[in-house]
């Protein structure tokens, strides 16, 4: 990979972040746009969960990560601390891989 491509990617990635924070965000002040923006994490977080758990190379995958997700959901349901939820899910997935 060339340095030019690498630095170009860095500039583009930063531009996307800055565009939201400095250009689009402030113009979305008040009204529907701000409400939509406020709902974005609610929409994107479950998508990140689903993709990080069930996605393979353009196909659905059911593997040890699903066990970690079940443990995370159960611990969240029981109002466990954040650290316990994260560590519990990792331990469950790691444990299943160790056995399998």
């Amino acid at each position, binding site marked *: 990979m060339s340095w030019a491509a690498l630095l170009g990617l*860095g500039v583009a*990635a930063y531009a996307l972040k800055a565009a939201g924070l400095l250009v689009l965000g402030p113009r979305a002040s008040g009204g529907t746009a701000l409400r939509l923006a406020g709902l974005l994490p609610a929409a994107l977080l479950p998508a990140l969960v689903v993709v990080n758990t069930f996605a393979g190379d*353009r196909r659905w995958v059911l593997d040890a990560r699903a066990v970690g997700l079940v443990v995370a959901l159960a611990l969240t349901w029981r109002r466990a601390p954040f650290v316990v939820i994260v560590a519990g899910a990792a331990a469950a997935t790691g444990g299943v891989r160790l056995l399998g």
Partner: protein
Amino acid sequence: MDSSPPEVLATKVRRDAWVLGAAVGAFGVSFGVLATTAGLSVPQACVMSLAVFTGASQFAVVSVLATGGTLASALGSAMLLAARNAAYGVALAPTLAHRRLGRRLLAAQLVIDESTAMSTAQSGRRAREQAFWVTGIAVFVCWNLGTLAGAVAGDAIGDPEAFGLDAAFPAGFVALLVPHLRTRAGRVAAGAGAVIALVLIPLAPAGVPIVAAASAVLPALLFAPSRAREGARA
């Protein structure tokens, strides 16, 4: 959680941020290993983590290159994955709007999954801003130190997936989602976002399912209009 005094919450946020940072750091190590095995030099791997600083995009680039993909497809998938950071920036703008331009330009580099999720899970602008900075800095420090260690050590380091660390990310996101489910609009957005991503996994290239899930905010507004304002605050 909301009934605790502010200083107790601040301490809790700091601890949670560094827990998240440690998990990210372990993934930084695996990124460093993967980057060097994909043909990047150690300085290139480190500069990518400093300059690009959005983990999923970086993994996309080196994994496409490692499996013989073209540079164009590597960069294309990375940009699709990075597009969600623009949406995060919009969501974070009110929290940082009172800061000077220089500070906001610095903040922009820290606009990523973890800092956005931790920030928007707090209530009140001060708590949100504190969560943004502490999480952004913790993840930045850990991700870059991890990349350096992984790039230098190369294949000598084992696979962090053996320890189930890849399951730590969705688990953290599950926990961070909870405050967004208090309103009906939030629940509709969450349900629709999950379904959109799940359906698109086999149909679209990596990155698209997550970006497309952003459209789940539209049914949330349509089906729960009166509660949407709360959703924006929760």
